[in-house]
């Protein structure tokens, strides 16, 4: 496969001033000595100059600025995001998801490890070398631990909801 950049790519880089000094002098020599390079260079240069000098901007209606100023009069400049984003909220959300993921993984692995034992199956179903007879997952993953996990998640969820609603309430008060 040809990985060499095309003549046009090299010429555009040269015209845009993006070529390295070595590449620049090599291209200058090619333009000087090679008719094809010279022809393409002049074509691209003309396109470049047309785009640089001839592209026109469209104008909106005469009232545009006035319309914008009338529109923004209805609003206030919002405080910078860094001022109102509470890092504790971010950490709280992060902790919530982390606990959820860890809980889910514990649950899944618990199911994987207890399933063969319950059906009297061997260790062949396991993808790694763990003796399920030595593991007592039931101690870790019983109904109490699951309930504790769910309660922690529910409390965290309520705390986050409370913080969110409190913030909204405060914003509404400020606007009024």
């Amino acid at each position: 496969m040809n990985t060499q950049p095309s003549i046009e790519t090299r010429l555009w880089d040269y015209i845009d001033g993006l070529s390295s000094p070595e590449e620049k002098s090599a291209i200058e020599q090619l333009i000087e000595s090679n008719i094809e390079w010279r022809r393409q260079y002049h074509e691209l240069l003309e396109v470049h100059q047309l785009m640089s000098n001839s592209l026109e901007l469209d104008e909106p209606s005469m009232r545009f600025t006035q319309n914008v100023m009338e529109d923004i009069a209805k609003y206030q400049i919002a405080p910078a995001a860094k001022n109102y984003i509470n890092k504790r909220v971010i950490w709280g959300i992060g902790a919530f998801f982390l606990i959820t993921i860890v809980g889910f993984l514990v649950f899944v692995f618990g199911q994987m490890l207890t399933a063969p034992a319950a059906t009297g199956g061997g260790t062949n179903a396991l993808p790694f070398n763990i003796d399920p007879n030595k593991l007592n997952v039931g101690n870790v993953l019983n109904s109490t631990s699951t309930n504790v996990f769910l309660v922690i998640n529910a409390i965290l969820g309520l705390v986050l909801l409370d913080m969110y609603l409190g913030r909204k309430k405060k914003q509404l008060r400020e606007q009024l």
Partner: protein
Amino acid sequence: MNTGTNDNEIISRVLRGEHSLYADLVKRYQNFVFTITLRYTNSREDAEEIAQDVFVKAYRSLADFRGESRFSTWLYTIVTTTCITFLRKKKLETHSLDNEKVFEVADSVDSGFRANQVEQKSKIQMVNKAIKLLSPDDAKLISLFYQGEQSLDEIGQIMGLEPNTVKVRLHRARQRLKDKMETHFVQEVKDIMN
């Protein structure tokens, strides 16, 4: 195009309460913003609505402008996201050369870019017509580079692309513009002869 320093001064004063100064920023960038939004829509009304929305969004988020980039780069990022949101919402048909019938006749004609075949004035008209027939992304890329005076890095920031990708896309966009112009010139010569 104005320097970033002046923009930053105006922004500081607007943030300190001189809200009317925001009009200076609007006047300074409204043509460019409107040109870009017009590339995405076929309607001046829609383009003006989007452009207005861009300036309102920029105003409301002005405190978030940290001056790490030029104001124009930051503003054009808002233009891009607003245009995309608007198009998604309204599902507008974008203006693409692929849908145009105007150039179909001359498509098969093998031509060169013969500058001496037409007058300079006509060429200026052609380049402005041709850019309107490019895809919105191609047109925006060319506009940002040539009219918005944005560097490849800045365009990358605006469009969420790597500078190298911007470079490749810019090459392709210019190539497509050149192709359109060649085709258009051939059509024009044909029109003159008929």
